[in-house]
């Protein structure tokens, strides 16, 4: 049906337009990859646009180990993974209690969490900074894991509540009849059933924590503990004359996300849509 519908569109023009737009969206990233293999001389004028004259893997060696981007990469991976696990577990517990258990204040609690969807985190920056300083958590992984977990809660709860509400009631009743207590109902019966929601929200949380800059730049000063986003940003002043390695570091920060995306694109796209519908 759609093919006849489209017959009026000049197909070649359409394809050309889509291709040009693909170039606009992707050429800067391709240029980034090419530049990551070039010498300073090529980058600063002799060969700005083309393929590298020689593929210099040494740039990657420099970025990963001399400038220690590998370390920052692992830091980011650790912080985001812990954030994803804690926020998924906490949100699933809250969502279960609100959606499936019987108590008076459930809607009040839910509304309270949902307020967090609208409020910019900027306004928590200074108070949270002081709180972390007072509790000596500043400059530790927790300085990011805790605020990231909290920022993830409203969205994650919002998405999970929908899933919990959609589950049929018979399952939990049957399992209670079979002698499960409430914790077993949650961990053994419900949690496996909302796995799709957990995957969706995890991707969403992962993306936002991985890319976060303001907190990461403020709550951790120690370069050995810094995230990769902060490391990339400080690379531009610390190794200002090492252009090739700088581009290599940026590719290292980017490529894993794109590879994961190409494997999980449907799931990633679903999670973005679920995260947006909250608005």
């Amino acid at each position: 049906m759609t093919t006849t519908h489209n017959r009026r569109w000049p197909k070649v023009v359409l394809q050309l337009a889509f291709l040009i737009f693909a170039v606009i969206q992707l050429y800067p990233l391709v240029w980034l990859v090419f530049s990551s293999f070039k010498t300073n001389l090529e980058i600063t004028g002799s060969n700005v646009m083309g393929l590298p004259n020689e593929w210099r893997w040494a740039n990657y060696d420099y970025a990963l180990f001399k400038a220690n981007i590998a370390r920052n990469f692992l830091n980011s991976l650790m912080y985001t993974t812990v954030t994803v696990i804690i926020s998924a577990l906490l949100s699933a517990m809250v969502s279960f209690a609100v959606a499936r258990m019987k108590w008076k204040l459930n809607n009040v609690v839910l509304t309270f969490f949902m307020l967090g969807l609208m409020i910019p985190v900027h306004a928590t920056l200074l108070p949270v900074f002081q709180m972390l300083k007072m509790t000596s958590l500043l400059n530790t992984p927790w300085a990011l894991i805790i605020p990231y977990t909290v920022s993830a809660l409203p969205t994650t709860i919002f998405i999970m509540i929908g899933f919990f509400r959609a589950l049929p009631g018979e399952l939990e009743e049957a399992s209670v009849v079979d002698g499960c207590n409430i914790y077993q109902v949650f961990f053994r019966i419900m949690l496996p059933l909302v796995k799709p929601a957990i995957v969706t929200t995890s991707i969403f949380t992962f993306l936002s924590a991985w890319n976060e800059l303001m907190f990461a730049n403020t709550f951790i000063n120690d370069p050995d503990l810094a995230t990769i986003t902060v490391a990339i940003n400080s690379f531009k002043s610390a190794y200002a004359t090492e252009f090739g390695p700088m581009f290599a570091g940026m590719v290292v920060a980017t490529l894993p996300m794109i590879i994961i995306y190409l494997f999980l694109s449907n799931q990633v796209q679903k999670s973005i849509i679920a995260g947006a519908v909250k608005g």
Partner: protein
Amino acid sequence: MHQVFGNKKAIAVFVVPALILYILVGFFPILQSMYYSLLDWDGIQPAKFIGLASYKDLFFTDTYGMDFNHSILNTLYLAVLSVFMQLPIALVLALVLARGVWGEKLYRTLYFIPVLVSSSVIGVMFLKIYQPEYGLLNTILNQLGLSSWTHDWLTESGTALISVMIPIVWQYIGYHMLLMYAAIKGIPEDLYEAAKIDGASSIRTAFSITIPLISPILKVCVIFAVLGSLKFFDLVFIMTNGYPTPETSVPSTLMYSSIFNRNMYGYGSAMAVFMVVECLFFYLVLQKLIRTYDDKEES
């Protein structure tokens, strides 16, 4: 049965951990910021209560020459650019892609890739693209024989703001496109069949069927784009950090530098609180202002 699902202790076990974290690190800090905004405080000396004086200074006196009003205008300009440039491009792409084009899934996947790139990478990358002597943009212009079009993009006051905004608009086109695309795919096929039997053109169909039916998601996109613009931070912080001022400063970078570079805790908090109020205000106004297909059904 009711005993099991009304188990007060279990409810507490499930809800309290998240609630405590959320109150301590999310809700309570907002209240603290509101209180700080009423103080004259550098974080070291004892604080002095000055009421709304910081707000007055921010908008009227501008003792510190930060030109906060101009920074608000910059974010409003970004919001306009997002709504009237980014969203229409995304909508056209989504409309055409969703109605079936060769390579539909490939394009959908490719256009989304910039969304995944961390803003610090985008920022540093565009710093290099705009670099005046050997940056990609000026190099391309020179090769095309358009040397007169080249600029020192990020430092000239005429081009600085738009140069910071282009990457923001560029990065999120794919994001909005995806949301709209998913919404269009949810429209039942028989509506299109009916339109075709009636002899409606593609453009007519888009305006009378598709766009009204996806208006709820368009509303979400507008709210996202506007609120995202108002609190924008990352790329400005990386690319110009607000310089040249006030051409590229935004409220969030001014807030950041007031607090962490100038130790003006009260003044910076006033900016933070202003941003909370501003976002809530725009959220409510846009919710009221934009009437979607769903709203009309209900009323």
